[in-house]
């Protein structure tokens, strides 16, 4: 034992130095330049509950993306039918399951079947035996294709949201997909949570639709909506009274142009009224479409629809070429800026819903850190004094282990890139109280051995030997609980599990290995005759 003492001290010193190296970046802001080239420079990561920030979970309504996809397929089938001169009585989407089609003539049945097999491999073509001798089909959307669309919707939404957040300007955002079509977003240190939320949650589907000027809106409001039309509203809020008013518009259902052709969107200030507006630039395809539409519909009204709400419906004065348009409204500067961001980043493929939000203000986070560490210091101080009083010199050795323990937990957090949360600090405090347990177990055993009349040397040997199994047993079960917690917990709770786990392991090492070194040194090497315990 004595022979290996030097080695053991070397191992301990090495571990302590390594712990300090991992901790240094968290303690000081300005590291020397040579440091970052060879040594770790990651700080202990603070959880949102400590540094302030916003945690959001979004749910992508990906069935809506399936609906949208099926609608587009319906349009494609329409075109194909027209091209092949097949006449149909009915063609519609069946929820999110597929498409229903009824042809006029029996003779077209085979032609359509061949056409569908070739062009729509994502569908199972199922002819229906209709007693009225018409030929009806159900095109069932294959589950594999459906899952693919749903997954794509989440991926695209994630990408779009990432772009929006990047443009909004948040440092170190964490955006990741989760199961059940959910997206987790963590925005540390965000200043205007409400604005960020509006920016993220908005679908931002921009559509241009022609106003149906042949039919009257009033008639349509009574329920007689002409086929191929829909009613959408323009919602305006009076900035003084805060009262909302809704103006109905009768629009052609067909969307002539969407926001997907936008290449750039910028905020500009109107010279006349000094009001901000958003100017759009379309790509070449969009510009061509826009020229066509405006050219064909001069003196008619073109509605700009944003998320199913009419933004404005200006009269087309002349053919507009060059691919530019503008969106006006009573926007504040921030609103216009955010609108430009979402238009640039593109629309979400499906609506999203915020299903969980946790926001912590920066002042609360700071309070939590301060109070947490204050209670750690006070609680720790009492434990340290108590141990020294109760066990004398041995107690002081245990206190030393306690210091190292806290050092190792902190360094462990930095080493594993784990996150320190408020429950995590609580876990650390708890470890301070509980980690002396291992030493207490050993000391009590040593006392028992001494009472049996053994020499200090033999008592230490016996005490450590007998307590070891118990210490391992007791700590492994706590470790099991902590690991389960880590597996199932989220956010702050996970932080608690991490500090608790690291704390248990650190306390095992310090209690069994490190204090032993000190004892061996004192009673083997220095050959102290009386043991202070």
């Amino acid at each position, binding site marked *: 034992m004595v022979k290996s003492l030097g080695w053991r001290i070397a191992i301990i010193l090495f571990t302590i130095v390594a712990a300090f190296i991992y901790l240094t970046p968290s303690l000081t802001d300005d590291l020397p330049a040579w440091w970052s080239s060879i040594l770790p420079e990651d700080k202990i990561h603070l959880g949102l*509950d400590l540094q302030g920030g916003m945690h959001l*979970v979004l*749910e992508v309504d990906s069935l809506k993306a399936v609906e949208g996809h099926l609608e587009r397929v319906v349009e494609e089938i329409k075109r194909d039918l027209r091209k092949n001169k097949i006449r149909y009585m009915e063609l519609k989407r069946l929820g999110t399951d597929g498409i229903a089609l009824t042809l006029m003539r029996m003779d077209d049945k085979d032609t359509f079947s061949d056409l569908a097999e070739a062009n729509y491999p994502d569908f199972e073509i199922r002819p229906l035996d209709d007693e009225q001798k018409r030929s009806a089909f159900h095109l069932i959307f294959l589950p594999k294709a459906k899952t693919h669309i749903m997954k794509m919707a989440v991926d695209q939404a994630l990408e779009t949201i990432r772009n929006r957040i990047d443009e909004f300007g948040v440092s170190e955002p964490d955006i990741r997909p989760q199961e059940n079509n959910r997206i987790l977003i963590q925005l540390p240190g965000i200043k205007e949570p*409400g604005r960020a939320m509006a920016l993220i949650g908005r679908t931002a589907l921009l559509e241009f639709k022609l106003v149906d000027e042949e039919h009257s809106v009033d008639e349509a409001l009574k329920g007689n909506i002409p086929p191929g039309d829909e009613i959408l509203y323009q919602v305006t809020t009076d900035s003084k009274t805060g009262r909302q008013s809704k103006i109905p518009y009768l629009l052609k259902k067909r969307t002539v142009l969407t926001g997907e052709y936008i290449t750039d969107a910028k905020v500009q200030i109107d010279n006349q009224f000094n009001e901000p507006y958003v100017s759009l630039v379309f790509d070449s395809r969009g510009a061509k479409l826009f020229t066509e539409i405006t050219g064909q519909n001069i003196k008619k009204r073109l509605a700009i629809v944003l998320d199913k709400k009419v933004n404005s419906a200006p009269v087309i004065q002349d053919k507009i070429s060059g691919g530019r348009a503008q969106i006006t409204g009573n926007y504040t500067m921030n609103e216009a800026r955010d609108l430009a961001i979402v238009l640039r980043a593109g629309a979400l493929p499906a609506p999203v*819903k*915020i*299903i*969980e*939000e*946790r*926001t*912590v*203000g920066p002042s*609360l986070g700071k*309070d*939590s850190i301060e*109070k*947490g560490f204050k*209670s*750690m210091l*006070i*609680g*720790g101080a*009492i434990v340290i004094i*108590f*141990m020294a*009083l109760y*066990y004398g010199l041995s107690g002081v050795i245990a206190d030393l282990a306690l210091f190292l323990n806290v050092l190792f937990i902190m360094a462990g957090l930095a080493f594993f890139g784990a996150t320190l949360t*408020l*429950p995590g*600090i*609580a876990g650390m*405090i*708890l470890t*301070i*109280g*509980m980690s*002396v*347990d291992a030493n*207490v*177990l050993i000391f*009590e055993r040593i*006392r028992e051995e001494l009472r049996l009349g053994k020499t200090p040397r033999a008592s230490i040997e016996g005490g450590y030997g007998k307590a070891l*199994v*118990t210490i391992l*047993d*007791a700590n492994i*079960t706590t470790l*099991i*609980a*902590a690991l*389960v*917690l880590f597996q*199932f*917990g*989220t956010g*702050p*709770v996970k932080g*608690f599990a991490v500090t*608790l786990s690291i704390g248990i392991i650190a306390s095992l090492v310090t209690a069994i290995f490190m204090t032993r070194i000190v004892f061996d040194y004192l009673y083997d090497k220095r050959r102290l005759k009386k043991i202070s315990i």
Partner: protein
Amino acid sequence: MEFIKPGINIDFIGKRKIAFALSIMMIIATIILLIWKGGPNYGVDFSGGVLVQAKLDQKRSPADLKAALKSVQLQDSMIQEFGEEGQFEYLVRVRKTDIELTGIGDKVKQAFLAEFGQGVEIRRIEMVGPKVGEDLRQKALFAIFYAILFIAVYISGRFELKWLMSIVMALSLTFVVYVTSSFGMSVTWLILIAMIVTLGLCWFLKLKYALGAIIAIIHDVTITMGAFALTDREISLAIIAACLTIVGYSLNDTIIVFDRIRENLRRYRRRTFEDVMNLSINETLSRTILTSTTTMVVILALFFIGGSVIHDFAFAIIIGIIVGTYSSIFVASPILLIWDGTFAKSRKINKAS
């Protein structure tokens, strides 16, 4: 220094009947409390809803706050004063989950700003949709369940060297949970069934140490829940974490006593089981009290100084430490004795017949 003199001999086991009566009373009180209050008082994490922590510049009555919230139709919210003296912090809880939850935090802020002017600070918003609440509840229950399962496996394997038995137990338990969950049973029932099955399996597979430890755990967590119901505290995610810590702590205590019992059983083969048990508890008493004290000291510091956010968490651990220490002496060990008593008797009956 010594609190407990060596050679102390308190007859803990002899007082087991009083202890059992006390424990059963507390558990029954918990059940009655929970039924009376209509189930555990779930926080927004589990029930869904919105919680807003607002700091005002001067003292207001809950009625003032409710009046301010009237403009946004949230006057039904629960208002609670929060935090230290002279801080003027309030918690606003919106329990309704049928309304649009997104943006409620902002609404509360606007309403307070309009009514109380500047100096309103929204320090924390927690919004949990009903579906997420349901998910979190399931996750939490499963966490407790798995913790108990793994611990049961470990204890039976470790203490009775019945690794095979414990694996049999784990497999059959997983099977039962799988079958019952395929019937679409709610997680609460699932856990209840799983607990009963675990206890039953421990009984039939004769895993007495696991049985004692698990009953002690269930005892501790139940009574902690009772203390929460009694003081009208909410059960949040952090409290579940606290419960699992209590499970770990209580086991820690129990195992140390069990370890000593095993050791002493080998050493004193002539003595009665009851004697050995008393001896073991007395021998570990000094350690039990010392560790509980140091843990209690730090957790009391956290409770009084740690700030309001962590308050309930600290409270749970305080209760857990008290009950956990008590249960490892008065619940877990006596169960070993009862077990031996029952089996000793049945052996006699077998001989007689």
